[in-house]
């Protein structure tokens, strides 16, 4: 009898598929990988299992008994635990490991000796090398995750769901975490492991399921499949929504980045950007994309490496100087770093060119309006008037405002960090046409994303960023989402040598 069984589970949202008619079963002591592109329905399924969502149809069985999981607390009582990426929100940093383990069931008067002894026992049982007397804030990320695992285990977790647990971890840390997950498996816990990194999946998991557009398209034991099959299942024949890029003429080398490091996530990155090129940087969550984009823009300090502009070394140490040199950044956190949500479209759009419309500091209102209107028309930003607050625009139009800010200033290199995050299909298409127009005007674009199908559709060249390193360069002819994802999830060059 299966530990957890899901039968015909469906959950739909207005406009997006959610999860459709999913069947799944997990045995005690099994590690089951859940794989899918962004928006495939992984997190919806996870929320259905944890009780955060209620299914529209279908049933969930635990040990053969039908259960209706009312909310996450109820889910935990039934033994279903989720371990989210943000471990810090679930722990109290100023308390010890022991206290955190027993946080939900601390007695009125604490017997410290017993508390630490019992904590020690739990940790030993799981083979976790942790001192229960250490404070949480002195722990590394992977150690914090261990505390959460131990806590869930203590509370009789039968099913544990991991949401991309290894994304923020370094190589050695990942190894440690995977080892601990194996320890849990040996104790009979059923594990659902969500990850983009196929390498890990194939090393760790027993079975796997692939979701695409809310449907289960592959459900197999790991030994009976291969990374290539999985990647194909993830994307099917889908390409970036029918967008076909015109073949643009790419010009001479413009920018050469050599051995860039930021002392953290970005490690020894070298690439070349040509004039009028759309350069894709493909990487999964945690690969260091945002960090690399910020490094190029001098928004975070450069530890090592140099940047050559048409062969000449460039020196800049602040976003202001980067902008003067011709760079522009469209950050991933649109509301947090890109937009002035309380200001008008006009004020947002004209900020970088204030100098030119404000001789001696006095803003020429007429000129400002003309400039704003020109961009609104060129990008077809849908708003009734220029004074409209950007807060009330749709995600796609907000993104156009952020990009529009840099159109019409002296931008030569546009850095886009996950530009399609949170915008709908139509807006995505419009964005691609806009980018095509920009490169036709001679602007070069560096496009950072984990959406492999977008990269395949729009890039001239793709570099794969894996754990902070550039691991592969792909030319136009090798670009399909499967290949990109294969390398971005840590695939090696082996079959490249096969085909060569």
């Amino acid at each position, binding site marked *: 009898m299966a530990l957890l069984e899901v039968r015909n589970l469906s959950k739909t949202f207005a406009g997006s598929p959610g999860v459709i008619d999913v069947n799944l079963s997990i045995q005690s002591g099994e590690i089951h990988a859940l794989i899918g592109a962004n928006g495939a329905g992984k997190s919806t399924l996870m929320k259905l299992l944890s009780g955060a969502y209620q299914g529209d149809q279908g049933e969930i069985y635990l040990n053969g008994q039908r259960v209706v999981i009312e909310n996450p607390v109820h889910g935990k009582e039934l033994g279903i635990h989720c371990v989210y990426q943000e471990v810090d929100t679930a722990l109290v940093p100023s308390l010890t490991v022991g206290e955190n383990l027993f946080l939900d069931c601390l007695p009125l008067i604490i017997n410290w000796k017993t508390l630490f002894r019992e904590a020690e026992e739990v940790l030993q049982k799981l083979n976790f090398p942790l001192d229960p007397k250490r404070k949480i804030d002195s722990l590394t990320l992977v150690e914090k995750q261990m505390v959460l695992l131990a806590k869930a285990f203590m509370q009789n977790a039968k099913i544990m769901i991991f949401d991309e647990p290894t994304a923020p971890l370094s190589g050695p840390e990942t190894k440690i975490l995977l080892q601990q997950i194996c320890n849990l498996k040996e104790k009979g816990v059923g594990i659902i492991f969500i990850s983009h990194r196929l390498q890990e999946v194939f090393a760790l998991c027993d079975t796997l399921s692939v979701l695409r557009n809310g449907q289960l398209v592959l459900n197999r034991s790991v030994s009976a499949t291969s990374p290539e099959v999985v990647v194909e299942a993830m994307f099917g024949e889908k390409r970036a929504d029918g967008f076909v890029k015109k073949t643009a003429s790419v010009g001479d080398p413009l920018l050469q980045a050599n051995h860039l490091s930021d002392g953290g996530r970005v490690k020894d990155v070298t690439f070349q950007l040509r004039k009028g090129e759309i350069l894709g940087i493909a990487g999964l969550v945690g690969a260091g994309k945002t960090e690399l984009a910020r490094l190029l*823009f001098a928004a975070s300090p450069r530890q090592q490496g140099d940047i050559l502009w048409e062969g000449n070394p460039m020196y800049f140490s602040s976003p202001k100087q980067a902008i003067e040199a011709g760079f522009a950044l469209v950050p991933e956190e649109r509301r*947090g770093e*890109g937009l*002035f949500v309380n200001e008008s479209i006009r*004020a947002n759009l004209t900020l970088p060119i*204030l100098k030119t419309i*404000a001789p001696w*500091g006095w803003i020429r209102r007429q000129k400002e309006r003309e400039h704003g209107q020109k961009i609104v028309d060129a990008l077809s930003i849908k708003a009734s008037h220029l004074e409209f607050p950007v807060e009330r625009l749709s995600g796609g139009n907000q993104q156009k405002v952020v990009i529009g800010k840099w159109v019409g200033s002296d931008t030569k290199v546009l850095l886009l960090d996950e530009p399609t995050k949170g915008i709908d299909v139509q807006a995505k298409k419009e964005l691609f046409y806009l980018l095509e127009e920009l490169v036709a005007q001679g602007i070069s674009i560096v496009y950072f994303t984990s959406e492999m199908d977008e990269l395949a559709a729009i890039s001239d060249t793709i570099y794969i960023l894996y754990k902070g390193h550039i691991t592969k360069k792909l030319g136009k002819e090798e670009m399909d989402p499967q290949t990109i994802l294969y390398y971005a999830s840590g695939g090696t060059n082996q079959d490249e040598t096969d085909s060569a």
Partner: protein
Amino acid sequence: MKQTALNFLYKYGALLVILFVLLYFSYAVPYFFTYDNLTDILRSISIVAIVAIGVTFSLIVDGFDLSVGSTVSLTTVLTASLMVWYEQPLAIVIFAALLAGAMIGLLNAFLIVKVGIPDLLATLSMLYVIGGVQKTYTQGYSVYNKMPLPDGTTAPGVLSPSFLWLGQGKLFGVPVPVLILILLVVGVHLLLKYTRFGRMLHMIGSNQEAARLSGIPIYSMRTWAYVFSGLFAALGGILFAARVGSGQMDAGAPLLMESVAAVFVGYSVLGAGKPNVIGTFFGAVLIGILLNGLTMLNLPYYAFDIVKGLVLILALAVTYLHVRRKKRT
């Protein structure tokens, strides 16, 4: 229907309250609505309003300056003492006071922008430091004409008539400090609304990280905001000395509260929803009318703090309720 009513209230509520208070006092106090009394009100609010303009600057960049009251106190005794003790000419006196204000602003900015202390805590500490400097400098005495000095002699200088004119005189029948205030309100309004400088301050207040990534020099701009805050407080201090004709101890202490209240009342004037200098002016007017009218109704002065506190609470409530309502929709 309810929405439009609420929006109407948010937009015109503050002005309606001013109108209502004005009408009420005109009805309740016969002498209230006379030219003399109205200019008196304007004269008495001019100093608060000028200090409040400074506070507006710090709030625009999403900061705060609690030290303005102490700065007024320090510059008041500094101005008076430079004339009474050291017989300095007017130009030097005014320059020295403004310089002191600017230096305090620089120091605040250093603590907040460079060291990274949260604005409220940094300026709270500075409030006490400046207050202490003021008391130490005057050894706890107020400064006035021909005052006896610790060594037994009398002070050599006096506050000159041309200096007193700044605080007490009239030009075309309008009190001089009121003229100065009006010039400043217009000037700062233009600066904040129509110049690159003002726009950059606003954008920093709206989203500091986005401003940095748009190439705005956020550190120097925030520094400017605190320097302006200090400068306007110093100007308030100068006018205070000129108005009362002496350098009173802790003269600025009540001004912090009143100026902050004025700025927050200003948030809701014409539904601006953010710090703005026209709103600040009307905020100061409201507080001035209330204090003047209540004095005439013989409310004891020690109860005034209750009124001021309530005005601030009301203004904050309107502002933050509006923010919450906007978030929900």
